[in-house]
């Protein structure tokens, strides 16, 4: 057991903590090159360049708003569809399951270009709602799959128990289903926000230049060979999923019957 623990600590330090540490150091130092004979030179220029971009704050705001919107919609669709697919039996169920996965089988760019015309027609192009909608295409299939598995793991027998004890479906959702699906909710939170944040092309097409997100601000910087600025930008970028994750954790703590974190479990 202790050997495994040691292995875990070494692996996570080597492959997770060390790269993050290097990234942080790079962002606050001048560009460092191997065997260049230079030491560590502290600087905050890279962050100054970053914050000098007039679009940075608004793009961060847009990204957070889109990420939160995509997340909430994913939770809604994922929980409802996942539960239906896991607990109900109906004709053509496997067909429906296959259809739920189909958006990730077709290049999302093709879907976005096709939908663009439609969105212009119904007035969703160049709007926040339109961008949220198009971001659902590459995220919803994963959320549905994750929640379907979570419900399947819970088992239909356990889901019937609250009903027998007199719970309404909503009460059951908040007291039994959501608390037991915390790991699934966490996975969906990270997955959807990171996927949503990384969309450049489809955001540009549907957002039409009105909705400017972080990747769009990020893109011109790719031309520079300045590793410090890139590192500063990466850190800025990584803060958004982290922030939303912390908010989600806080919300999860509000669920009834949440395990007291400091209780020793034997």
């Amino acid at each position, binding site marked *: 057991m202790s050997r495994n623990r040691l292995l875990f600590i070494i692996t996570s330090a080597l492959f997770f903590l060390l790269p993050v540490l290097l990234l942080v150091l790079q962002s606050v130092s001048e560009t460092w090159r191997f065997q260049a004979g230079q030491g560590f030179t502290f600087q905050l220029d890279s962050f100054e360049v970053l914050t000098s971009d007039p679009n940075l704050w608004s793009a961060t705001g847009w990204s957070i708003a889109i990420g939160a919107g995509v997340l909430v919609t994913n939770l809604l669709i994922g929980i409802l569809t996942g539960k239906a697919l896991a607990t109900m039996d109906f004709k053509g169920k496997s067909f429906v399951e296959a259809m739920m996965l189909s958006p990730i089988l077709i290049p999302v760019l093709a879907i976005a270009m096709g939908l663009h015309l439609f969105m212009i027609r119904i007035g969703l192009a160049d709007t926040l709602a339109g961008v949220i909608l198009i971001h659902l295409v590459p995220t919803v299939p994963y959320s549905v799959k994750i929640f379907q598995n979570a419900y399947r793991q819970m088992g239909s*027998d*356990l889901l*019937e*128990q*609250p*009903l*027998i*004890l*007199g*719970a*309404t479906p909503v*009460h059951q959702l908040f*007291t*039994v289903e959501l*608390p*037991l699906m915390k790991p699934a909710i966490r996975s969906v939170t990270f997955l959807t926000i990171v996927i949503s944040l990384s969309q450049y092309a489809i955001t540009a097409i549907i957002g039409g230049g009105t909705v400017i997100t972080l990747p769009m601000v990020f893109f011109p910087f790719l031309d520079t060979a300045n590793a410090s600025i890139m590192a500063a930008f990466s850190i800025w970028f990584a803060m958004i999923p982290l922030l939303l994750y912390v908010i989600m954790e806080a919300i999860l703590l509000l669920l009834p*019957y*949440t*395990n007291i974190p400091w209780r020793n*479990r*034997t």
Partner: protein
Amino acid sequence: MTNTLEIQKLTKQFNEQSILRDITFSVEKGEVLSIVGPSGSGKTTLLRILAGLEPLTTGTISISGQDVTEKKANKRSVSLVFQQPLLFPHMTVEENIRYGAKLAKKDSKRKTQSLLEAIGLLDYKDYYPAEISGGQQQRVALARAMATEPEVILFDEPFSSLDPQLRKELRLWVRTFLTERSITSIFVTHDTEEAMLMGDRVAVFHEGKFQQVDQPSTLLQSPNHPFVAHFLGGHLVIDEERYIPVQSCLFRPPSDTSYEQHEGTIQHKTYQHGQTIGHLFLESLGEKVSLPVQEGSVGAELSLYLPLDKIKRFEGGRT
């Protein structure tokens, strides 16, 4: 009205196949009715219908004189204890017990305390289900069902996942628990011994209906259907109309009365309660019978003599 539960002409069809056929019965207040039958005979479906988890095709269900046929599971005053304890893993023992009670607005600290005492788990109230044993979990499941103070508790083979020793202890405990509190309940099992022990009355369930409902002793002494005699054991079914108790079968011809003679082969032997039990196959009847044997090895042929005055007739038709 003394009947807590009344079922009238209940039928259930699934894909045009009849699972329950015209079932009518009632359970008195405080009575325990055991339902016993082979696996897959539809017993669980019957319980699920009574609990409101599955729709019925035709018929009515009344609880304390009130028709609940159309009521949803969460609106019926019925609890169902499943084969598995199915405790909520994220709640402590105490929270599990109080879950339904709070919803039924019958939650009180004193009641929870007394239930925890009754199931002997007062010291474990802050434990999570994963931290207690299978038998303890099943007792918590029972207390959780009790805490809502339902008018009827349904048990669906609640001990089948436990080891034999624990099973014996727990069923006696549950029996006493139900009797002391005069709780109306239906207890479903495929184990005849368990059915006899748990039920004030036992219903033998087969092919979608009750073949016979009687007190355990009556059921054992005078089965009214060949299936009942077969299923409960203790009798040799001679034909569709006649049977004889196993203890009346003889290995030597009786001198004082006329008899039927059948040839049989010992197929194998087992040992129970210090006795050697021979499992015989009677070729002329196409029947198997198990009875104590003194001599004869596996494969030996012997004659079985059935005194005519001990042979009884099935008085079928009564349910």
